[in-house]
C-alpha cells in the first residue's frame, strides 16, 4: 500500500508540473491567436490548472489512506474465513494484524496458525481497494485538470483565484499555532481529568508524600508538594542566586564600562553559553560538579550529602540561565533614556552611583520581568534535573540533599514500562498541567511588566 501511495503521489506531482507547463503555453497561445490581452499572466493560468490537478487528488489520497484500512478489515470480516475468529479482544486484533502484515509483505510468514486462512481474503480485499483508490485518484486528477484547462480564456481571472488559494494557505499556516496551543491545553486537561477521577486534586496539590508505583501492597500516593518544593528550590532559589547577580553585573559591565572591543568578544561568548544543549549541562553537573559538592559537604560534615544534590543541579542551571538574565537586563538598561544617565552624571555622580541609584531603579521593572521569564525557564528545564538532581522526593531545605522536580518526575513516570492508562502515566499529565499553568502565568505577568515599562519610557 505504501509503495502505491508513493507512486500516486509522484504521479500527482508530475502531472501537476505537466499541467502547469501546458496551461502556460496554452494561455499564451490563446492570447496570441485571439489578439486580446490576457487578464492574468500565463503562469497564473499554469498555477490554476496545477492546483486543480493536484489539490483534489491529494485531499482524496489523504482521506483514502485513512479510511481504506477499515474498509479492507470490514471486507475480511465479512468473508467465510473470519467466522472462526475469537470474539473481539486483544487476541482477535493480534491475529488480524498478523494476517494483514503477511498479506502486505511486511512479515515473512505466518506464526499464528489462526492467521493463515485470513491472508488470502486480506490480499483480495487489499487489491480491490487499492484498485479503487488508484482509479478514483486518476479520475479526480483528470477531471480537475480538464475542468481547469477548459477555463483558460483571455478574460479569465486566474490570478485572483490563485491568490485566494494562497491567502487560504497563509491563514491556515497561522492557525497551526492556535491548534498547537489548543492541542496542548486539551490533551493536558483531558488526561488530567482522567487522573483526577482516580486521585483528588487536593491530594496532588497539597499532599506531602510522593510514592507512585511502590507495588501492589502499598497504594500509590500522589502528594506533589515535595516535587513543587524541589522545583522551587532548584529553579527559583539556587539557580537564581547564581544567575541574577552574575547576569545583572555582566549586563551592567557590558553596557556601561566595557570597551566595544571587549563587548565584541564577550557577547558571542555568552551566546555560546546559551547555545550549549541542556543535556551537556546535565552531564557536566552529574560528572564534575555534583561529586565536587558532595566531597565539599562531606568535608564540612553535612549529613545526607548526596551525589545527586539540589545544589549541583541548581548551580549548573544558574550558569545556563546567566546569558538569558544578562540579555534581558541589557535590554532594560539600554531602554532607560540617555537623558536620565546624563543628568545624573552632570550632577557629579560617579558611574557607579548613577548605575545603582538611577539606571537600575529605572530599569528594575524590566529586570524583574526578565527574572520572572528566567524562573519560568528554570522550572521547566528537564535534562539537568533528570541527570543531576535525582528522583528521591525529599522535603528538605538542605541543598546538599537529593530532591526531585516536577519535570524529572514527568520523565520518570512516562519512561517506565506501564500501560498508558495507569494512574502513574496520567499523573505525569496532571503534573504537566500544573507546570504549564505556572509557566504560563509567569510568562504573562513578566511580559506585561516588560511591556508596561517599555511604554513608560517611549
Amino acid at each position, binding site marked *: 500500500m505504501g509503495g502505491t501511495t508513493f507512486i500516486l503521489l509522484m504521479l500527482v506531482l508530475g502531472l501537476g508540473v505537466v499541467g502547469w507547463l501546458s496551461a502556460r503555453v496554452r494561455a499564451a497561445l490563446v492570447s496570441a491567436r485571439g489578439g486580446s490581452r490576457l487578464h492574468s499572466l500565463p503562469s497564473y493560468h499554469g498555477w490554476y490548472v496545477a492546483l486543480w490537478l493536484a489539490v483534489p487528488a491529494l485531499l482524496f489520497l489523504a482521506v483514502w489512506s485513512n479510511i481504506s484500512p477499515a474498509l479492507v478489515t470490514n471486507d475480511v470480516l465479512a468473508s467465510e474465513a473470519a467466522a472462526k475468529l475469537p470474539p473481539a479482544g486483544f487476541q482477535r486484533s493480534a491475529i488480524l494484524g498478523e494476517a494483514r502484515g503477511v498479506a502486505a509483505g511486511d512479515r515473512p510468514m505466518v506464526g499464528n496458525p489462526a492467521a493463515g486462512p485470513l491472508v488470502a481474503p486480506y490480499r483480495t480485499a487489499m487489491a480491490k481497494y487499492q484498485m479503487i483508490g488508484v482509479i478514483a485518484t486518476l479520475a479526480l486528477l483528470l477531471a480537475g485538470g480538464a475542468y481547469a484547462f477548459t477555463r483558460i480564456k483571455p478574460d479569465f481571472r486566474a490570478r485572483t483565484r490563485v*491568490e485566494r488559494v*494562497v*491567502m487560504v*494557505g*497563509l*491563514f491556515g*499556516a*497561522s492557525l*497551526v*499555532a*492556535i491548534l*498547537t*496551543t489548543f492541542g*496542548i491545553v486539551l*490533551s493536558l486537561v*483531558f*488526561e488530567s481529568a482522567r487522573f483526577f477521577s482516580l486521585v483528588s486534586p487536593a491530594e496532588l496539590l497539597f499532599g506531602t508524600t510522593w510514592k507512585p508505583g511502590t507495588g501492589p501492597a502499598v497504594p500509590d500516593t500522589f502528594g506533589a508538594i515535595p516535587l513543587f518544593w524541589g522545583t522551587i528550590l532548584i529553579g527559583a532559589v539556587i539557580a537564581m542566586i547564581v544567575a541574577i547577580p*552574575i547576569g*545583572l*553585573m*555582566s549586563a*551592567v*559591565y*557590558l553596557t556601561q*564600562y566595557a570597551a566595544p572591543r571587549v563587548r565584541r568578544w*564577550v557577547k558571542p*561568548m*555568552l*551566546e*555560546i*553559553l546559551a*547555545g*550549549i*544543549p541542556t*543535556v*551537556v549541562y546535565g*552531564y557536566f553537573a552529574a*560528572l*564534575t560538579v555534583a561529586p565536587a559538592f558532595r566531597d565539599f559537604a562531606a568535608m564540612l560534615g553535612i549529613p545526607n550529602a548526596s551525589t545527586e544534590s539540589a545544589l549541583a543541579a541548581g548551580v549548573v542551571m544558574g*550558569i545556563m540561565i546567566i546569558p538569558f538574565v*544578562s540579555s534581558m537586563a541589557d535590554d532594560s538598561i539600554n531602554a532607560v533614556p540617555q537623558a536620565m544617565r546624563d543628568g545624573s552624571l552632570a550632577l557629579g555622580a*560617579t558611574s*557607579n*552611583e548613577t548605575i545603582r541609584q538611577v539606571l537600575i531603579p529605572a530599569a528594575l521593572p524590566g529586570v524583574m520581568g526578565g527574572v520572572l521569564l528566567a524562573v519560568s525557564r528554570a*522550572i*521547566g528545564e*528537564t*535534562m539537568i534535573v533528570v*541527570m543531576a538532581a535525582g528522583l528521591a522526593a525529599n522535603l528538605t531545605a538542605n541543598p546538599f540533599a537529593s530532591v526531585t522536580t516536577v519535570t524529572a518526575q*514527568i*520523565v520518570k513516570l*512516562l*519512561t517506565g514500562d506501564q500501560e498508558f492508562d495507569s494512574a502513574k502515566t496520567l499523573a505525569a*499529565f496532571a503534573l*504537566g498541567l500544573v*507546570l*504549564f499553568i505556572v509557566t*504560563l502565568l509567569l510568562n*504573562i505577568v513578566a*511580559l506585561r511588566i516588560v511591556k508596561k515599562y517599555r511604554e513608560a519610557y517611549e
Partner: protein
Amino acid sequence: MNSTAPVTTPTAAPLRRGPTAWKSGAMQGRIAARYAAERRFRRTGLAAVLLSGLFLAFLLFTMVGNGLRGFTYTSVAVPIDFAASPLTVGRDAFTAPDADQQLAGAGLREIVDFAAEEALGADGAALISENAWRIVRDELKANPDKATQRGTFALPVASAIDTAAKYDGTADAERAVTALREKGLLSTGIHWPFFTGADATDPAVAGIWGALKGSVMTIMIAFAVAFPTGVLAALYLEEYAARNRWTDLIEVSINNLAAVPSIIFGLLALSVFIQFFGICQASPLVGGLTLALMTMPVIVIASRNAIKSVPPSIRDAALGVGASPVQVVFHHVLPLALPGIMTGTIIGMARALGETAPLLLVGMRAFIGDVPTGFCSASTVLPMQIFLWSDQVDRGFVEKTSAAIIVLLIVLLSMNALAIYLRNRFEKRW
C-alpha cells in the same frame, strides 16, 4: 542672598554656607572613598563577566579533556590464519545480502577467539573485545581475498584493557597491558567504528553514526514542517492580518508557545501523535514533528522581525507599478527578508538539534543497535545518545559520552557560525 531663598519656605532661616572646601581632608577622603567604590563596582562587573567566561572554559575543557580519548581505541595485532582454519562458507557469502548472518554462522567468532589465544596466551580470547570478530567480518567483506590467507588484524581490545591502557585499570588488566606492551602488540589509533557504528553495549563497537543519522533525519522533518508553516504564518500576521481579536489570539498563542517548557511539547506529542494518530513511535518522523511544533514559534518571531525591517517604500513602489498584494509579498518582501528569516531558522534548528526532553517522552530513549533506515524506523538522536551513554556504568562510556558531546558541540557551533555568516553577508541595513 535673601532674594535667592526658596519661596516655598519663607519662614526658614536664610541659607548661609561658604564655598565647599574641596581641598579639606574630609572632602578629599570622601572623594577617594567614592572613587574606590567606583573601582570596586567596576571590578565586580568585570569579575561577573570573567566568571561566566571561566564557567564556559571549564565546561569545554572538561568535555575536551574527557572526550579526546573517546575518539581513539587500543587495538592488539593478532595474526589469523584462514588457510589453516578456513571458514565454512564460500566466497560468494561475502557479497550475499545476508552476508552478516552467513558469516556469523560460519564460525568466524571461534576462529578469531582461537587466533587470539594462539597469539596472546591462554586468556587471549578475554583480552580482545567480544565484538572483535565483527571488525574482522567487516574487513573480510571489504576484501574477500583475505578470507583464505594468513593475515594480521588489528583487533579492538576488551573495554577493561582499553581503560587500563589509557588510564589506570584493575590490577589484572594493568598486568595484561604491560605484558602486551612488552611484546609491542598494542597500538592506539583513531577508532573508526565510533564514526560508523550505532549504539552498542560494548564501547569497542559503540558509535554515533546511528544517532547522528537519526538527528539529521529528525531535523529534516522538523525543518520541512516548521519552516514553511512558520514563514507563511509570519507573512500572514505581518502583511495581511486585520487587527482583530482573532489575530490577537494567534499572536498571544505564538508568544506563549515560544516560552512553554519543551517537555510540555513531549506530552502533547505523546497523547496526540502517538496515542491518537498512532504515528510510528520513537521514529524520526514523530520526533521531527514534535520539534517542529517547538521551533515554529521561534521561526515565526524571527521571520516577523525580518519582514518588519523591510522598508514600506518597497511595498509602496511595487503596489504603485501595479503588483497585487500577493505579488508584492512574494516577489519583493519575502526575498528581501529571507536572509534574516534563514538566520532565525538556523538558530531555531540548532536549538531543536540539541533538544532532548520532549524526545524522551515519544520513546526515543530506547536502545537502538542499528542505524535507522527510514523515517518510520526506530531511531535515537545525538543528544539522546549522550544521555543514554551517561547512564552507562562501564568506564569506557565516560569518554564516549564526552566524545559525542564534542561532536554535537562542533555541529551546533558550525550551524551558529553559518547563521552569523549569513547575517553579516546578506543582511541589508535600510
